[in-house]
């Protein structure tokens, strides 16, 4: 036994000697560390649609306009703008004296270059182009004035200019460097510039002192890509990460974070809504009465309180309260199992009729929600089964091809916060997310609002659409899930945005 312990003792000593390093490594003063669930792979604005691209890139780039956590559109690289030619021309006065991180000057040429690139051959390779296809061309009026000429009026465009594909890039830098170099070494006018990027591991940003809005208060920001929720929370608890951003923290870990004196959970209303949509084309759910019965059979409020720990709001239509087109007066169908049974009987649904619910296999929280839903359906005499799919199979194959069961999961969260971006894609005939339904009246409503420039009138139509969809019970609206941030209390002045697009120039750390 003596010889044994000697050898293993040495091994143990070697391991123990390695312990102190890295474990509680002290952070440099003024550095904020953030855990983000995903590496977008490229930092080029035209290459991505990922919200976690935005969580980083919002600090690197500026758009003509900016939309912060209060969701108001405010000046950024454009100081003012006006709508001309009945909405078909937008004129922007540009901010003077702005430079990119590489020293290039920002001017009208940069704006023209950015949009021509987005809409041209370069943009064709990426997913962003279609969002801005309404822009016909960019006219330079003078060095600091540009006009965006639109093919038709687009009420949502100004919001879209605050993010993603519309981020302004430096013309000389982008055209002189190879594509993959630009992808990995983004240059913008934002408050932070990229110091280093290690694919799949993380990104380091450092303060850009010459930012037009003043130097940021932090010296540096480090992002680490951590997808496994339990791991990200462990990093937060170990003090090696200051903020864990959505969509990482599952509801189930909220009590864990709240129990830690050093940490807090910031919960904000997000654009993300969840629904179980119906196969309106065939089976028992082709009958509107059955759909209504199924909605009424499920106590959605109880699910939110118990399974979601109250971190969600019940919805009556497939949008959050942040969405343009949201009608606070709309009420969800009540929880009424007796009425549900009555309706099912009226529709001639046999007891024990099977209902298959298709969900994403990787969403544990929604899995629990669906099981609760299934058990409520069971109580009114339906036999609910749940079929999990790998997310991409569900999204790219099962739903668009109309191969779902009676119900399927849809989670949605457009950053433009405009109900059009949801409703058109969900309800218009022939759209990818609408494999089953075709409703002429609904189509007409959806088309009509797209060219309206009168905001108030448009909002009315959008509300009308929501009402119409609810009357036909096209989906079982479930809830609007809060965005959950796990934050170390040493972080000050951090305002959690609803859309994960964080701008960190005012944030400080103790």
């Amino acid at each position, binding site marked *: 036994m003596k010889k044994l312990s000697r050898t293993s003792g040495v091994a143990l000593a070697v391991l123990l000697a390695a312990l102190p390093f890295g474990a509680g490594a002290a952070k440099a003063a003024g550095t904020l560390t953030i855990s983000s669930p995903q590496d977008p792979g490229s930092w080029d604005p035209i290459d991505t649609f990922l919200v976690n691209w935005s969580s980083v890139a919002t600090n690197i780039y500026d758009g003509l306009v900016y939309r912060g956590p209060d969701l108001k559109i405010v000046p950024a690289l454009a100081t003012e703008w006006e709508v001309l030619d009945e909405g078909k021309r937008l004129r922007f006065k540009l901010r003077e004296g702005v430079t990119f991180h590489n020293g290039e000057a920002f001017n009208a040429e940069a704006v023209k270059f950015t949009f021509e690139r987005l809409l041209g051959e370069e943009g064709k390779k990426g997913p962003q182009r279609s969002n801005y296809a309404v822009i016909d061309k960019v006219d330079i009026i003078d060095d600091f004035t540009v006009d965006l000429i639109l093919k038709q009026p687009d009420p949502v465009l100004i919001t879209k200019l605050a993010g993603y594909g519309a981020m302004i890039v430096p013309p000389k830098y982008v055209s002189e460097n190879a594509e993959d170099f630009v992808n990995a070494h983004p240059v913008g006018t934002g408050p932070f510039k990229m110091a280093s990027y290690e694919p799949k591991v993380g990104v380091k940003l450092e303060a850009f002192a010459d930012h037009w809005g003043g130097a940021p208060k932090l010296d540096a920001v480090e992002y680490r890509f951590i997808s496994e*929720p*339990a791991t990200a*929370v462990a990093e937060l608890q170990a003090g090696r990460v200051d903020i864990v951003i959505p969509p990482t923290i*599952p509801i*189930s*870990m909220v*009590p*864990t974070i709240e*129990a830690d004196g050093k940490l807090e959970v910031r919960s904000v209303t997000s654009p993300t809504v969840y629904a179980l949509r119906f196969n309106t084309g065939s089976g028992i759910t082709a009958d509107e009465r059955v759909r209504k019965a199924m909605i009424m059979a499920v106590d959605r409020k*109880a*699910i939110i*309180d*118990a*399974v979601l720990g109250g971190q969600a709001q019940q919805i009556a239509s497939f949008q959050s309260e942040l969405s343009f087109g949201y009608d606070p007066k709309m009420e969800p169908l009540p929880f009424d199992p007796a009425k549900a049974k009555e309706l099912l009987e009226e529709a001639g649904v046999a007891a024990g009729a099977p209902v298959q619910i298709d969900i994403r*296999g*990787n969403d*544990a929280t929604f*899995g*629990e929600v*669906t*099981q*609760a839903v*299934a*058990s409520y359906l069971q109580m009114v005499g339906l036999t609910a*089964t*749940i*079929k*999990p*799919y*790998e997310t*991409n*199979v569900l999204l790219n194959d099962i739903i668009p091809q109309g191969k779902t069961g009676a119900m399927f999961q849809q989670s949605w969260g457009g950053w433009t916060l405009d109900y059009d971006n949801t409703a058109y894609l969900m309800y218009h005939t022939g759209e990818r997310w609408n494999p089953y339904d075709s409703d002429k009246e609904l189509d007409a409503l959806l088309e009509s609002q797209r060219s309206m420039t009168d905001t108030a009138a448009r909002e009315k139509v959008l509300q009308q659409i929501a009402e119409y969809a609810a009357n036909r019970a096209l989906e079982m609206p479930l809830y609007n899930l809060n965005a959950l941030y796990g934050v170390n209390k040493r972080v000050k002045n951090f305002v959690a945005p609803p859309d994960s697009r964080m701008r960190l120039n005012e944030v400080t750390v103790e």
Partner: protein
Amino acid sequence: MTQAAARLRHFKNIEFILGIVLAGTMTLAVLLSPLLFPDGGEQINLAARLTRPFTDWHHLLGTDPLGRDVLARVVTGGRISLLVGFASVAGAVVVGVVMGLVSGYYRGFWDMLVMRFADVQLALPFILLAITFIAIVGGGLGNTIILLIVSQWVQYARLVRGSVLSLNDREFIHAAKAIGVPDIKILFQHLLPNLAGPVVVLMTLNVATNILLESSLTFLGLGVDPTIPSWGGMLADGRTYLQNAWWVSVFPGLAILFTVLGLNLLGDWLRDLLDPTGRTEA
């Protein structure tokens, strides 16, 4: 018989007893689950969610986030784990033994084909094979079992082929061939019984491995339907509750640990008993 040998047997028995107690108890409980828990632990009760264990006699091991009884779910959930474990091994044995017999007995072209096929199989890392396979055909119980069969028949094929090669030249096979016994009869009546020992050992150990693999797949979100309680699924779902409701994942974890350990102990014991030359390594 020396005293040492007698003592050896005595200690062997510890392994056997421990193995049979662990694996036997777990298997028995799982098999009896329809009687013990007729509702299969499916009863959702949101009001009683996350009850602590040993506080309520109705929920001895507490309840999960949906208020379902953890004990009932652990016992019922074992059905999936054991089904996947045994069915996949049964499938792999059938495929592997047939392939191994054919390639070892006939040699030549078939041998080459089967063995190269086996090489390809062995060169593909399991989990990567699994994520690609599931991405193509989707998850679920049946596909999980097929996946495990696909990735494990090779072990049996190699084992059987090696044994057949060494048996081929043995006198009783020569004799059987000489008196005109048909190939199929030689294969199944003469060769197969001689291979039973190492195959049974490998099977026992593989059931253990496959129960673990199933839980890994479910952990990665590639496994069986989450509505059917399974140990892997309970572990995966419970992992984010570990700090505030440890029992949700600790009990199914222990169930896996005990069952797999029991099977491994039995396999180890069987190996010494049936396969003293050590043709199976695990």
